[in-house]
Structure formats: C-alpha cells, structure tokens
C-alpha cells in the first residue's frame, strides 16, 4: 500500500476506515518491506531519544559548540516554576522543550532529526507537552509520531524539507506542520482535520528564510523551534475548534516549494543574509572562526 498526496492519503483512510498513523504504518510494512515489530520498535527508539533530549538540559544545561546558545530551557523552566509565566499549560511546556532539544543538538548530544537536526525541537516540544498536560499513553504519542511522519513524508516527496533548497519554512515550517497534524490526531481529531492543521501551519510559516549566524545550527534556529511549536499548537487548536483550512494541504505543499524556489540563495542556509548578515551576526561569526585555530 502506498499514497503520494494528502488527497490520496485521505482516500486510503476513508476506504479502509483507518487513521493516518495506521496508514503510515501499513505503508512502511508493505511498500517499505518492513514488519510491524521492527517498525514499532524503531519508532519507540526515536521517541526515547526525543524524550531524553527534551528533558536533560532542564536539569543540566549545555553550552553549544559555537557558544551562541545554552541554558535557555532551564531559564524558561525556572520561570514557569516561579508562577510568574505569561504562558501556561501545553504552550508553556512546549516552549521549554522546544529550547531544550536544540541545546542538546548544538552541544553534540544525541537527537532525532525530524525532519532535520535544525528543527529537531519542534516535534518533541508538542508531543511531550500534550502527553504531560493530558496524561496521554505511549500508544497515543507513537500514533502522533506516525501521523507527523506521514505529513513529513508528503512534504519530502512533494515539496521540500531542506533549508538549503527552500529556506527555514521547509525545516521549521515542515516540522511544525508535521506535529500540528500529530497534535490533532492525539487529541482525537479526524484525518481531514490533521491535514487541515498542517495546511494552516504551512500558510502561517510561509516564506521564512534560513539565515544561521556563522552557518551554525544555533541561532536563530533554536528560537525558531519555539515559533514552530507555538504555530503547531495554534493550528491544532483552531482545527479542533471546528475551523477548516481554506487551502488544501497538497496545494499548500506546492506553494511552499514555489516560494522556496523564489527565496534568494543568500537566505537559504548560506549564512549570507538575514540574521547572519547583521553587523552583530557577522561579528559573532568572526569571533567564532578566529578561535577555530588555523
């Protein structure tokens, strides 16, 4: 069994009366020549790595290789514990986790690229925020990951998940779209609603450029993980309230690719524009590379 578009996926879900997560599992086990045990155990392994990387920096902050980031998750967690936070519930937790994973990544810890290393905080942020806030079981969270995987696969196939090809919208934007669909599925939404949330998320992050300071996966990548997680929660909440996406997912995926192609190369991971090209961004670059010891 295979599907190549959101329309195709919804047809499969409707005909077989299954969720997006189960359609993605079936695709992996048939077209992907895997088997249910292996597929499930690989996904559990990924989930465990995500869990560790989303939590460890809260206790033990990491300094990044380039020195631009480190300690953000602990600061946010301390403030949440103080009771003064202006955020609450899932949004507050998602913000903390979204900053933790990029700390682990930038300090050479183990993460799951989802879909990329630069966007690796977005999925864990939303998955664990909802898991804890609503006491969800592991099966529900794994369903979330397979749902996210289905959206990520469609974007990989029909659009882009590469910052170098299509900008940050394709990395953080794709991760956010993936996990917004996951959030809807985990909270009991229909397959249509999952893809509606993904579509709204893409439209809200359309055009975001990739402009890493000094070319490193640190800033603004880390805070953009928070922006992605927040966007995912926003679209999921909209859809679960009964709001529908105006533009179908497949059209939004095409649109993201077209927008990506029109982003100049300076703003596609080359570190020649945006944040990277500001005077402060440039001076960080000089400082980091003057200590590279050549």
């Amino acid at each position, binding site marked *: 069994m295979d599907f190549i578009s959101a329309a195709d996926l919804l047809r499969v879900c409707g005909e077989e009366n299954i969720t997006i997560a189960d359609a993605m599992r079936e695709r992996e086990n048939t077209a992907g020549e895997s088997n249910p045990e292996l597929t499930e155990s690989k996904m559990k392994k990924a989930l465990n790595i995500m869990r560790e990387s989303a939590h460890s920096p809260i206790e033990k902050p990491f300094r990044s290789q380039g020195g631009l980031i480190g300690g953000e998750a602990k600061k946010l967690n301390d403030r949440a514990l103080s009771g003064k936070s202006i955020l609450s519930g899932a949004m507050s937790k998602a913000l903390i986790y979204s900053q933790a994973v990029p700390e682990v990544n930038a300090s050479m810890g183990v993460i799951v690229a989802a879909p990329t*290393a630069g966007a690796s905080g977005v999925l864990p942020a939303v998955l664990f925020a909802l898991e804890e806030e609503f006491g969800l079981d592991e099966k529900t969270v794994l369903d979330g990951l397979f749902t996210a995987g289905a959206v990520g696969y469609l974007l990989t196939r029909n659009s882009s998940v590469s910052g170098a090809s299509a900008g940050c919208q394709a990395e953080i934007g794709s991760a956010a779209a993936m996990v917004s669909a996951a959030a809807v599925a985990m909270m009991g939404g229909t397959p249509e609603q999952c893809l509606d949330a993904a579509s709204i998320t893409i439209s809200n992050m359309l055009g975001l450029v990739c402009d890493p300071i000094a070319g490193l996966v640190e800033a603004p990548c880390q805070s953009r993980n928070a922006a992605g997680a927040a966007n995912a929660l926003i679209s999921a909440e909209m859809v679960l309230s009964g709001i529908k996406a105006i533009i179908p997912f497949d059209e939004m995926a095409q649109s993201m690719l077209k927008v990506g192609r029109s982003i100049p190369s300076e703003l596609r991971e080359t570190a020649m524009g945006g944040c990277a090209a500001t005077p402060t961004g440039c001076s960080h670059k000089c400082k980091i590379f003057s200590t590279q010891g050549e």
Partner: protein
Amino acid sequence: MAFISVFDVIGPNMVGPSSSHTAGAASIALLVHKMTGGNIEKVKFTLYGSFARTYRGHGTDKALLGGIMGFEADDVRIRDSFRLADEKGLEYEFEINTEETDVHPNTVDIEITRRDAPPISVRGESLGGGACELTRINGVKIRLRGEYHALIISHQDRPGIIAAVTNILSVLDINIAYLRVYRESKGGQAFMIIESDEEIPDKAVNKIKKSISLDDIMSIKRQEV
C-alpha cells in the same frame, strides 16, 4: 523515485548539530573503518568546501575521528573522540584545503596507514540528511553508499577476474544484488564492488583471497538497526 521511509523523516538518530556536517561525516569515516576492519595505525583527513570552512562549529573533525574508530552517527562518544583516539594511540592529522573548489561542498579525503597492509585513500561526500557516498578509492572513481553488505576488491584489470570471483560466490549460494567495476586505465588498477542483500560470510572472503591473485579484498557489513 526511491522509497521514502517514515524513518527518513523521523530520523536519522544522530549526534548533533548537523545531519550533513556531523552525521554524514561520521558515516563516511565509519564506512572506511569497516572497509579496513579497523586496522588503522594513522589517519589523515583533508577537508574541502563547507567542511573546511565550518568544521569546528559543526564538530565535523570529532565526527570523522569517531567514525574512523567505529562509532555510529548516534554514538555520543563522538563528542570525546579526540581524547579516545589519544588513549587508543591512534595517530591523526587534519588538513584544511580551501583552494580546491571543484569538489562537492562537503567532501573529505581520508588517508589510512594500516598494519601489514598497503596504505589506502578514500574520498567521501556527505549528501545531506545524514546520507553519504564514497566516491574514490586510491584515486579511482567509484560509488559506494553502504546500503548493502559489500565486497570491495582491488585488482589489476585483466580477463577472468570477475568470473573467478562471482563463481566462488555462486558456489556458496550468495546472491549478488549489484556488481560494478571501475578502472584507472586498461590493464591498470581496478576495483570491483559487489553488493549483496545477505551478509557475505568470511569463508567466501577467505576463499577468494586464497584462490585468486588480488591486491586487496575488503568486506563491509551493513549496519543492522
């Protein structure tokens, strides 16, 4: 279009920060580790392109050295690979080449000195998303991604070698998925790369070694997840 797995999207599991500059680099060096069976006394890495410019911020050097010692891309020991290499007594050297620009942006040359075996040099390219490809062995253009169990056979270009090797594999009932041959020049240095879905047993390697006159034979076992 190649099958896109859910684990291409939720994955790879890796030591950060970059799938191309860290995970891909580790995977290149790990393939070289497997090729040599870990028989490495001394290693020299030459970094080109984006690898040369940004290796330290991405830990590309640690990832390469870790891979050479046999660490997978998600092995957290990569962070300490300099210390671990020193403890093992592995000699290493890094060279930065920013002059040569006619290469894939994320390219590394790895020169290996082995015990009781001739030196070997390999070029690898990191293709993005953690994927990589070896593109040269001892200066001869080849192509190897490490997706299958593989034999890499170095020999002189002369009639009958391919038949002799494949005959031994066929007698041992080993199915060949892909077979590719490369050569420097007619009658010169040549490489044969055989890929198989099943693991190629050591007895096949030993039999080939014993019965055919070759320069070298290396076996790569695919990583099982």
